[in-house]
């Protein structure tokens, strides 16, 4: 997990105003790695468990999962989510996973 990220792959992508990728299908794990590096997060196996879960949820439901869903359905304890993605786990995980901003709140 210590491979050096290739930032150049981020340059050709489109993002919304908050820095979320606009085309989730353009995402690759290498892009995820590069976005995480920009956000100063070193991805471990636990991070990938969350990212993979978020991707799978997006394919099934068309939106990034809420924090509760990642925790209750994805099985990653809430506290650990905050340790893995400090600041806002649902948003940051979605960003790294190349998904639109979670719309959990209305």
């Amino acid at each position, binding site marked *: 997990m210590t491979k050096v990220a290739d930032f150049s792959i981020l340059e050709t992508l489109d993002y919304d105003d908050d820095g979320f990728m606009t085309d989730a299908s353009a995402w690759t794990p290498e892009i995820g790695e590069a976005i995480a590096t920009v956000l100063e997060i070193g991805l471990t196996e636990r991070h990938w468990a969350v990212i993979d879960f978020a991707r799978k949820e997006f394919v099934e439901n068309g939106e990034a999962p*809420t*924090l*509760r*869903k990642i925790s*209750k*359905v994805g099985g990653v304890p*809430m*506290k650990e*989510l*905050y340790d893995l993605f*400090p*600041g*806002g786990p649902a948003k940051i995980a979605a960003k790294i996973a190349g998904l639109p901003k979670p*719309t*959990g*709140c*209305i």
Partner: protein
Amino acid sequence: MKTLLILGAGTGGTMVANKMSQLLDTREWKIILVDKDETHYYQPGFLFVPFNIYTPNDVVKPKRNFIPKNVELIFSDIEVIEPDKNQVKLSKRTSPIRYDQLVIATGSDIRPEEVEGLANGGWQKNIFDFYTLDGATKLGEFLKTWKGGRMVLNVAEMPIKCPVAPLEFLFLADWFFHEQGIRDKVEIVYSTPLPGAFTKPRASAILGDFLEQKGIHLEADYNIMEVDSGKNIIRSYDEREINYDLLVTIPTNMGAEVIERSGMGDELNFIPTNKHTLQSKKWENVWIIGDAGNVPASKAGSVAHFMLDVLVENLQRAIEGHAPLPEFDGHANCFIESGFNKGILIDFNYDVEPLPGTYPIPAFGPFSLLKESTFNHWGKMAFRWMYWNILLKGRKIPVSSQMSMAGKLVYEN
């Protein structure tokens, strides 16, 4: 004889029962409405109870008063919904009720036990909710003799019923403490998982200014992890601690337990619902109105009202063998009490965030959008009468179900 079964006789279920009882041929159709509780609560009124603006009596009436005679009303707990078998089991009946069409209006409720320590030692001592009549009444008793200190309002988790209610509570509390002559002895803190005062950016900025003007401190992006009621501290997942003397909580809101028992809900027991047709995503003859579903609109009575026309039309189309129309646009319309006999009005949908302007008539109003006015306040107060006398009976309110851009001011970037 065919059966339309409606589960839940709150705002949504009562409106559907009234409307469908006028539209269905009673020689062909039987309408059955089920609820566990004989009392209808005017939930928007709970907000006013802690401040003695409404008494508990002002917000309750017998459900029976609002149900037409040709609807069979059953008071019972619902044991389980079996949508694959088109039947529902009630605890008060030995045989299940078979249905041809099912409308689910079982709503949502607070679940204090979802936050560690919230429902423990301090519950209803110096920790209160105002989303139940009991909580709002007990909070009112507490406030009568409170001498001041730090009041923290915490929203545990989104989504919640009526996302403007926390703001209204803060504005009314600010006013109340002024009237009591103790505003200078009360520190008000608003901690919310949202990044700002409200869910939509432009309204959030304007409402955030109101908080600042009223001296209310906003603690944003705050996801509560636990309550330590021994030390009177709340702690977030990112380890921010806030001391409180009085904690007013809006606990996690979840759909009814029967939805979970029936395996029909998501992780918050909300039923996956097509956000434009209001049909269940899984069962063609199941329809969802109000906050029982997972559509990304506000969980509020005004939204249930705007859903009504679309749901009723689609239900009739389904009965006649036509596909449902994708007509619901997420329209919400909220009066926000801002204290000192003033109010703010916002009007929005799935795609258009709340904008300034006038409503419902361009340039005239009489209501002003995203701006404080006394007229907006009286609109809110008059709404209780409208609710009991017009809305619940499924009668027409003179604004359209779909949001209109007329009167809204759109700024170019």
